[in-house]
C-alpha cells in the first residue's frame, strides 16, 4: 500500500500537468471549505443602491450627477434662473447655484416629500407634519395644526400655500396662518397645485381629484380609479396629473380627460413649460415628453427611480433615486465578477458554487467507483449466470440518456442535490464495471488466484483479498475519471434547471444567466463559472493521466 502511494506521489510530481492539477484541486477544496469566509456578499442578497441624483437634460443631451445627496431626493423646484432646490429623505435639502450642488442645513431629520419655490421663498413639507420655510438662505420650522405625513405642497407668489397628506389631510396657509381644511375624502392626498389663492387642485389615491376655490375643496368626477401621484398646472386652463400604471390625466378648460401616455409604469412628476410642452418622469428611469400632441418615450439609459422634475424648456432637472437594484453591474472593487440582473454578487455565487461541484463530484465518483468496482469484481470472477445478469444491467444503464433520465428522477422526487448525485451515480458505474471486469477476467487465470482457489479460499475472500488489491490502481483511475465526469454532469443538469433550488452551482449560475436573457451582453456573468468548470475538470484529467501510468504500466514502458 505504502509503495502504491509512493508511486502515486512520484508520478504526480514528475508530471508538470499533474502537479498543476493537484494544486488546482487543493485550491478548489480550500475555496469550498472556506466559502462563507471568502464570499464578499450573501449570494442571494439583491444588492440595492440608494442615493440622491440629478439627471440633466439639455436638448438631446442627457447626463447624470450621482451622489448629490446621501439618500433619495423627492422633489425639486426652480427658485431662480439656473437655480434649483431639492428636498429628500432625512431632512436633506440641496441647492444648485453657480454650477454646483451644495447641502443646506435644515432643523429636521424627517423625510421631506415636496418642495415648492415661489417669489424668492421656498416651502418644504414632509412626514409627521413637518413644514419648513426657506427664506434668505435659512430654514425655519413652522408649527402646523397637524402631525399627519405631508406629501405635497404648493406655494404661490403672493404667499398663500396648500399642503396635503395622508388620509385626506389638507393645510392651508393664508395671511401667515395655517389652518386645517376638511375635505370630502379620507384617502391619501399625494400632491397639490395652487396657481392662484382661489384656484387649485389636489390629487390622491384611487383617482381622487379635488378642486380648491380659495376656501374649500370639492370632489370632481375622475376619469380613472388609478392612484394619482402628482399634479401640475401651467395656467388656469391647462394642467396635467399623473399616477400609477402610466396614468396621464389632461386638464383643459374645466375638463379632466385620460390621455394615452407612452409609459406603463408608475409616473411621479410633471414639468410644464407651456400648455402643450410637457415632460413626465417615473420609476425605473422612465421619462416621456409630449411632442405635437402625442407622448413619446425619452430613453434616459438609467434604471433608477425618478421623483421630481422641473424644466424651463432649455434645461430640465430630474431628481430621485430611491433604493434601486444594482443590476448587471460590471466587475468592480465591490463586485469582483459584477452582478446579476437581480443585483446578486456573481463572485460570491461562484465561490459558493465550488462546494456543489466538489461535493457532487466527489460523492458521485465514490458511488460510481464502489458500485462499478464491485460489480466488475463479481461479474469477472464468478462469470456464468451472475456475469450475464450483471452485464445485462450494464447494458440497460448504457441505453439510458442522462438528461431525460435525471428529469424522470426529479419528477419522482423533486429537485435536489441527491437527485443529481443519484442520476450520475446510477448511470455511470457501467463503464467502471466493464473495465474492472475485463481486468478481473485476465487476473482470474493467474497462478496466484488458482493457488488460492485450490487452498480452499471462499470466493468472497479471493475477490477481496487476492484480486481487489490488483485492480485498486485501476479503480483509483476510475475514481478520477468519474469525478471529472460527475462535475461536468452536475454542471450540465444544473444548466438545464434540474439543480436543487437555492443552492448555487456553476451550472446554475449559467442557467440563470441564460434564463434572464442578459447573458448575451453580460460576459462577466458567463465567463467565470464556465472557466471554473473547465479548470476543475481539466485538473482532474491531468491527475488521472498521471494515475494512468500506474494503472496501465504498458504506457510508461517507453
Amino acid at each position, binding site marked *: 500500500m505504502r509503495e502504491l502511494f509512493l508511486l502515486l506521489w512520484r508520478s504526480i510530481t514528475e508530471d508538470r*500537468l499533474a502537479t498543476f492539477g493537484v494544486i488546482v484541486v487543493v485550491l478548489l477544496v480550500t475555496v469550498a471549505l472556506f466559502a462563507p469566509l471568502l464570499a464578499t456578499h450573501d449570494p442571494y442578497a439583491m444588492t440595492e443602491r440608494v442615493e440622491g441624483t440629478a439627471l440633466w437634460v439639455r436638448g438631446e443631451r442627457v447626463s447624470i450627477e450621482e451622489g448629490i445627496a446621501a439618500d433619495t431626493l423627492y422633489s425639486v423646484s426652480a427658485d431662480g434662473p439656473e437655480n434649483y432646490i431639492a428636498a429628500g429623505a432625512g431632512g436633506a435639502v440641496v441647492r444648485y447655484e453657480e454650477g454646483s450642488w451644495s447641502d443646506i442645513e435644515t432643523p429636521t431629520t424627517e423625510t421631506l416629500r415636496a418642495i415648492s419655490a415661489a417669489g424668492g421663498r421656498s416651502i418644504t413639507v414632509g412626514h409627521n407634519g413637518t413644514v419648513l420655510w426657506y427664506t434668505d438662505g435659512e430654514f425655519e420650522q413652522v408649527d402646523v395644526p397637524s402631525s399627519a405625513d405631508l406629501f405635497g405642497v404648493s406655494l404661490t407668489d403672493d404667499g398663500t400655500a396648500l399642503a396635503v397628506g395622508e388620509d385626506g389631510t389638507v393645510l392651508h396657509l393664508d395671511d401667515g396662518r395655517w389652518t386645517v381644511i376638511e375635505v370630502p375624502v379620507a384617502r391619501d392626498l399625494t400632491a397639490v397645485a395652487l396657481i392662484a389663492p382661489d384656484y387649485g387642485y389636489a390629487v390622491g389615491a384611487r383617482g381622487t381629484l379635488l378642486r380648491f376655490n380659495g376656501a374649500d375643496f370639492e370632489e370632481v368626477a375622475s376619469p380613472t380609479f388609478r392612484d394619482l401621484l402628482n399634479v401640475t398646472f401651467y395656467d388656469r386652463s391647462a394642467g396635467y396629473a399623473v399616477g400609477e400604471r402610466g396614468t396621464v390625466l389632461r386638464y383643459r378648460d374645466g375638463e379632466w380627460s385620460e390621455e394615452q401616455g407612452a409609459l406603463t409604469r408608475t409616473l411621479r412628476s410633471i414639468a410644464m413649460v407651456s400648455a402643450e410642452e410637457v415632460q413626465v418622469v417615473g420609476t425605473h428611469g422612465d421619462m416621456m415628453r409630449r411632442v405635437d400632441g402625442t407622448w413619446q418615450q425619452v430613453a434616459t439609459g438609467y434604471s433608477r427611480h425618478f421623483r421630481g422634475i422641473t424644466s424651463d424648456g432649455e434645461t430640465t432637472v430630474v431628481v430621485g433615486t430611491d433604493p434601486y437594484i444594482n443590476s448587471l453591474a460590471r466587475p468592480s472593487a465591490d463586485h469582483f465578477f459584477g452582478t446579476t440582473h437581480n443585483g446578486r454578487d456573481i463572485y460570491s455565487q461562484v465561490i459558493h458554487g465550488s462546494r456543489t461541484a466538489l461535493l457532487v463530484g466527489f460523492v458521485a465518483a465514490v458511488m460510481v467507483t464502489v458500485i462499478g468496482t464491485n460489480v466488475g469484481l463479481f461479474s469477472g470472477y464468478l462469470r456464468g449466470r451472475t456475469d450475464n445478469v450483471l452485464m445485462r444491467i450494464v447494458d440497460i444503464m*448504457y441505453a*439510458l440518456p442522462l438528461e*431525460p433520465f435525471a428529469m424522470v428522477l426529479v419528477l419522482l422526487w423533486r429537485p435536489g442535490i441527491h437527485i443529481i448525485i443519484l442520476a450520475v451515480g446510477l448511470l455511470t458505474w457501467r463503464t467502471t464495471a466493464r473495465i474492472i471486469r475485463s*481486468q478481473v477476467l485476465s487476473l482470474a487465470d493467474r497462478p496466484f488466484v488458482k493457488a488460492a482457489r485450490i487452498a480452499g479460499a471462499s470466493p468472497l475472500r479471493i475477490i477481496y483479498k487476492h484480486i481487489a488489491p490488483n485492480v485498486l490502481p485501476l479503480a483509483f483511475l476510475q475514481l478520477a475519471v468519474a469525478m*471529472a465526469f460527475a462535475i*461536468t454532469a452536475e454542471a450540465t443538469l444544473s*444548466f438545464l434547471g434540474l439543480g436543487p433550488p437555492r443552492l448555487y452551482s456553476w451550472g446554475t449560475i449559467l442557467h440563470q444567466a441564460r434564463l434572464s436573457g442578459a447573458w448575451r451582453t453580460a460576459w462577466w456573468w458567463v465567463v467565470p463559472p464556465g472557466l471554473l468548470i473547465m479548470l476543475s475538470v*481539466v485538473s482532474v*484529467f491531468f491527475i488521472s493521466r498521471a494515475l494512468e501510468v500506474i494503472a496501465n504500466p504498458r504506457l510508461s514502458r517507453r
Partner: protein
Amino acid sequence: MARYIVGKLLQMLFTLWVILTVLFFLFRLGLPDPTVALVTDGLSPEDRAIVTERFGLDRSLPMQYVMYLGNVLTGEFGRSFHYNAPVTAIVGERVANTLILMLPAILISYTVGPLLGVLLAWKRGSKLEAGGITTGLVFRSAPMFWVGMLLIMFFGIQLGWFPTSGMRTFPYEAANFFDKIFTLDFLHHLILPTIVISLYYTGLPMLIMRNTMLEVMGEDFIEFAEARGLSKARIMYRHAARNALLPVVTQAAITAGLAVGGQVVVEVVFSWPGLGLEMFNAVRTSDYPLAQAAFMLMATIILLLNFAADIVYGKLDPRVSYSSQGAGV
C-alpha cells in the same frame, strides 16, 4: 459465429423488453397525470375525464401495459398527448434533425482526431505533443453549453457572422427532407453547433490514437519497416496507424450511439429541434408515449452499435473503455 450473433441479438431483445417495462411503470406510477395541465386551460373535472378516456388512461395499469406491449410488437407506439399525433412521426423527424447535427461533427472529430493522434505519437516528447494533449483535454473539459454560449455571444451577436439559433432561415421551400438540408443556409446554421461539438469530441479519438500508436510503434513490424528504409511519414500513417485504428473505430461506434440521443444542452443552446430536447420535454410534460418511444429508439440504437462494436472487437478492450468515460456527458 452465427450462433453467437443470434444469442447476442436475443439478449438484446430481452434487455429492450426490460427497459420498456421499467420505463412503462416508472412513467405511469411516478410522473404526474398528463391531463392535469389542461386544468389551467379551464377544463372542468368532467371534461378532463373525457380526455383521460380518449388516451386510454382510465384503464387499469396491467391492461394498459398489455395493450402497449401488443402495440409495440406491431410497431405502433401510440399517440403523443402533447402533440396529439402518432409518436413515430414526431420521433422520426426529431431523430433526423439530431443526426444531421451530430453526425457531421462526429465525423470531423473522428477524422481529425486520429490524424492528430498519429502526429502526437510521432512527435513523442516534443512541445507539440504536450501542447496537443493539453489542448485536447482542455476542450474536453469545457462544457459544450458554455462554449456554445461564448461562440454565440462572439460570432453570432457581436460579429453577426452566424445565425444564433435554429436550423434554417424562414421562409424556405423544400419538397422533402433532403431538400431542406442541402442548402447553404442550412450549412450556415450548422457551423457554430458543429464547431462546439467537434471541439469537444476531437480530444478523445486523438488521445486514444496516440496511446495505441505508442504501443504499436514498439512492435516488430514497425522496426522491420524502419529497417527497410521507408520514410517516417509512410511508416506512421500507412503501417502504424492502420494497426492502431481499431480502438478508435470501436469508440466511434459507442460515441455515435450516444449521439442519437443528441446533446440536450447543445440543442437547448442552439434551439435545435432534436430528439434530446424532445425527450427531455416529453418527460417534463408527462407525455408517456412520446418519451417512451424516444427512450426505446435510443436504447435500440445504442445496443445495436455496442453490439456492432463487440463484433468488430471480439470483446471490449479496457484501453478503449476507460477512455470512453467522458463520451456520455
